[in-house]
């Protein structure tokens, strides 16, 4: 899974390593939502379309890895549960200028127990903050890797995925 705030570069990241152009799937949800939307005209029910971009990497003849970018709005967490099942882990993309945008994703993965890594997305290595500063700001434990990345570059995205799978493997072997 590739998570993070709206506009942080999730689809760019997916596209950088995917063997296909990222595809979009949509789920139509009808939910009785309280206090989220203005329901004056809808009588208590709201239908929402949640869009999710994804890509695929064929790793072996019988092994395909799918990369799902989570819907950007944290209110769609219930769809994430669907994704977390069977997932190896999550790359949480962070724009350090908008650090708070990644809080819902970090909270969610901490609670669900899914292994995750924090990837600070910056253009061509420009990073205003050091990973350890971000660790402190996000109150992330020492076991969770924090790396820097450029979501546009295949090598960077690939390396972030490798870090994630290594981390997931370590977590399983503990």
């Amino acid at each position: 899974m590739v998570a993070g705030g709206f506009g942080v570069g999730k689809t760019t990241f997916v596209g950088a390593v995917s063997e296909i152009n990222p595809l979009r799937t949509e789920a139509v949800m009808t939910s009785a939502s309280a206090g989220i939307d203005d329901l004056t005209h809808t009588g208590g029910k709201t239908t929402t379309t949640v869009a999710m971009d994804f890509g695929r990497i064929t790793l072996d003849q019988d092994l395909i890895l799918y990369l799902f970018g989570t819907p950007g709005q944290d209110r769609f967490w219930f769809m994430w549960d669907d994704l977390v099942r069977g997932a190896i882990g999550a790359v949480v993309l962070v724009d350090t200028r908008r650090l708070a945008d990644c809080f819902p994703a970090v909270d969610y993965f901490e609670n669900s127990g899914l292994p995750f890594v924090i990837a600070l997305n910056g253009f061509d290595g420009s990073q205003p903050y050091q990973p350890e500063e971000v660790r402190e700001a996000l109150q992330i434990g020492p076991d969770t890797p924090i790396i820097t990345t450029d979501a546009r570059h295949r090598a960077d995205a690939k390396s972030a995925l490798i870090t994630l799978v290594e981390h997931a493997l370590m977590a399983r072997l503990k």
Partner: protein
Amino acid sequence: MTPPPASHDPYGNSVDEYGHEGDQPLVRPYAMTGGRTRPRYQLAIEALVSTTADPAHLATLLPEHQRICHLCREVKSVAEVSALLSMPLGVARILVADLAEAGMVAIHQPGNGETGGTPDVTLLERVLSGLRKL
């Protein structure tokens, strides 16, 4: 709902596959599923689908089922079925489950059965080595 052309790369034709912004489908999505909103069993979004049906039998299927069978001659995930045939994920799940029940497609559910879906160590090692070789 016309079947896709016989020979083309489904990924290369996204404009045709998706239609244009503002085009409304002629059929409301859940009309294809007979009004059902839950599949008979829960398919993972990344479950792989491959067609097993004899091409001679395809003509007897509903158009949406036919399109899925055409698409899944090469292995596709449920998510790809949804995206490439422009149907909501929930609809794709139901239709694929129908086809599986009728023996028209084979489904490869990820993970080790119902163990909560957490990938095992062997699988993680394979993924890791695959990524390193990219």
